[in-house]
């Protein structure tokens, strides 16, 4: 990734300290049925190059399908996959990468999720446009942004 792209895109980072073993956390992240129980229905396999989807019920402005490809698998340390819009939304939708990092700590594991690659145009305001009040939505978003 170039410097220009780095500055033009943004990431969501969520971290949790969990009082569990590395092995257990790794299984929750990589075994399909376990992954489904907390994240989404999937056909994931921890194999670099494996293409798979995460699926949830469609909603307004999103078909609910995420196209993924496994980028890296370092058992009990790191797992990364692409996280892209699917189908008709693929051309204009998000193209991001989700990276999981596990760090052993006293009494547990620091679980870190970084979803990177959000671009300024990755907006969902077309929903506001559909309902005819995108300007008001913008004001509300500004208030939400100040709050968070």
């Amino acid at each position: 990734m170039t410097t220009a792209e780095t500055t033009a895109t943004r990431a969501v980072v969520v971290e949790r300290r969990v009082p569990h073993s590395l092995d257990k956390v790794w299984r929750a992240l990589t075994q399909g049925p376990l992954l489904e129980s907390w994240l989404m229905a999937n056909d994931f396999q921890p194999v670099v190059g494996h293409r798979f989807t995460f699926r949830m019920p469609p909603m307004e402005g999103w078909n609910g399908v995420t196209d993924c490809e496994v980028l890296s698998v370092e058992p009990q340390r790191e797992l990364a996959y692409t996280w892209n819009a699917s189908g008709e939304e693929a051309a204009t939708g998000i193209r991001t990468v989700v990276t999981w990092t596990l760090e052993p700590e006293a009494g547990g594991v620091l679980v870190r999720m970084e979803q990177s690659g959000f671009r300024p145009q990755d907006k969902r305001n077309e929903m506001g446009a559909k309902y005819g009040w995108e300007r008001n939505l913008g004001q509300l978003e500004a208030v939400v942004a100040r709050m968070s």
Partner: protein
Amino acid sequence: MHLAPDDVFKALADPTRRALLERLLREGELNVRALTEQSGVSQPAVSKHLGVLRQAGLVLERPEGRVVHYRVEPKGLAPLMDWMRFYAVFWEERMDRLENLLKRMDQ
């Protein structure tokens, strides 16, 4: 995750409800009386609007004696946000579920 964009957008199609929500976002928790003061509509009307916002998952209520306090439910706002804010809420909620799963799993 609670996501019903149609309900959310219909609830916010009304300017009075939007103003109520914006006040709660700015000022935190308020009761019906405080919300009525600057709304320009009657207290029963404000209560009715708050009911619609609550149904859409946008506000939470906390009764205290005869007074009910209202505050914003941040998760309910997810459909209004851009993808980045959507996923910020999404991953927090999924991490909660991951923690619950880890508690249930065998060693």
